[in-house]
């Protein structure tokens, strides 16, 4: 292989290494969890809370009905 070709390939490999290191550094800054995953987690938590609230309301309604029947 000619020296110039070797040097060109070497220069491009250095560019590839720079790209890889940049991606690693920026990814490390972002942390392991993506924004989409965080949003999905938040949504699931909100859904759980809503379900709990619905259950509580149903229980309260049932209790209210029982008291009405007794009276």
């Amino acid at each position: 292989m000619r020296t110039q070709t070797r040097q060109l390939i070497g220069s491009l490999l250095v560019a590839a290494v720079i790209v890889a290191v940049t991606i690693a550094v920026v990814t490390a800054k972002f942390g392991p969890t993506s924004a989409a995953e965080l949003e999905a987690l938040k949504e699931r938590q909100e859904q759980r809370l809503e379900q709990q609230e619905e259950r509580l309301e149903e229980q309260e309604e049932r209790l209210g009905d029982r008291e009405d029947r007794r009276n």
Partner: protein
Amino acid sequence: MEDLVERLARGNITEVKVMLMSVALALAGYQLVLISVGYGKLRPRFLDPGPASQAHRASGDAIVVLLVVVAVMCLSYFGLEEGAFHAVTGASLLAVLAVKIVVLRWWHAAGRFLPVLGITVFLLLAATWLSTAGAFLA
């Protein structure tokens, strides 16, 4: 277009943008080193001016692709909401880059302005990165 961008980035539009801009900026820094070797300002024993200039051209083509993708993402998803400074530096970056490509490919008479155009592209790229990615990563 907005939906396509969102789907491709899986909802992480800002993160993908920051990543692409950071890669472009890192490569742009390497570009300065390569072209310094290409012009003979730096003379490392392991790299001749010819291969350095060729690598500069190849790496520059990659940067152009990255910047066009980021610009499309920016305009289609965020519009011009991101702030005047970012919009001005981003638009100027693309304009100067376009002039540089024209000078490189067709307008050879203006070749003596290439170093100035290259440094301007680097500075505008750094300013554009700072106005979004820098703030996001800080």
